[in-house]
């Protein structure tokens, strides 16, 4: 079955979405990520959507669910690289992605995760 790869880098999981996802592929990613978060007890998840030229309500819901699931499992999710046109469209669509942390690019997203994973 077609799958979007999930990479593990230290305590973090990294997903780079580079294909125009059909709905089943998005659902598989959601399930795979949830499983990997619990199996690896990752400290953070970074989802890079810089290659995505569209986010509709289905993908938006998937992102919201992943973020919610990870929070319940005490993991941070950061969404990085959203294109400006995609961000504008999302707002007009009516999707505000409450509770989803975002960063401009992968580097900043990593920094955000590192800071929040650091011992207090």
């Amino acid at each position, binding site marked *: 079955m077609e799958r979007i790869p999930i990479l593990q880098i230290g305590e973090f999981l990294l997903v780079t979405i580079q294909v*125009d*996802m*059909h*709905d*089943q592929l998005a659902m598989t990613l959601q399930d795979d990520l949830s499983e990997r978060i619990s199996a690896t007890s990752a400290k953070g998840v970074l989802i890079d959507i810089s290659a995505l*030229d*569209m*986010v*509709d*309500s*289905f993908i*938006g*819901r998937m992102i919201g669910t992943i973020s919610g699931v990870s929070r319940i499992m005490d993991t941070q999710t950061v969404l990085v690289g959203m*294109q400006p*046109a*995609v961000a*504008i*469209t999302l707002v*007009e*669509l*009516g*999707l505000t992605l409450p509770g989803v942390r975002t960063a401009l690019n992968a580097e900043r997203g990593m920094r955000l995760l590192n800071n929040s994973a650091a011992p207090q």
Partner: protein
Amino acid sequence: MSAEQSGTQPILLEQDVVRARQLARTLAQGCGMSLINLTKLVTAVSELARNAVVYGGGGHMDWQVVEKDHRKGLRLTFRDEGPGIPDIKLAMTDGWTSGGGLGLGLTGAKRLVDEFELDTAPGAGTRVTILRWA
């Protein structure tokens, strides 16, 4: 109207939603559409094509390149022979879904385009026409 100015594409399966998005993107680029307008249009296409598959049991997307005052645009009709929508007002409410969606497909698509027309009745299928200028 020449053959390249209009056409039809079936939307039967989930993968056809991706194809509908890709066709709309190519056509919008051909109209010289700005990236923001193109992104809005493609997102609306994704919502309406998915509805045709999920709720309408599959259908078609008719497309037409239009021009007015030297400005191009794209008119798209999503039509299916599914059950239709019994309560249009309810379906056109932000956040209302009969399935497990976010209920933003119809209302969101309407906000993302210049013209939006919904024509449906119980047992008579659903037809949504949108227009986005370049």
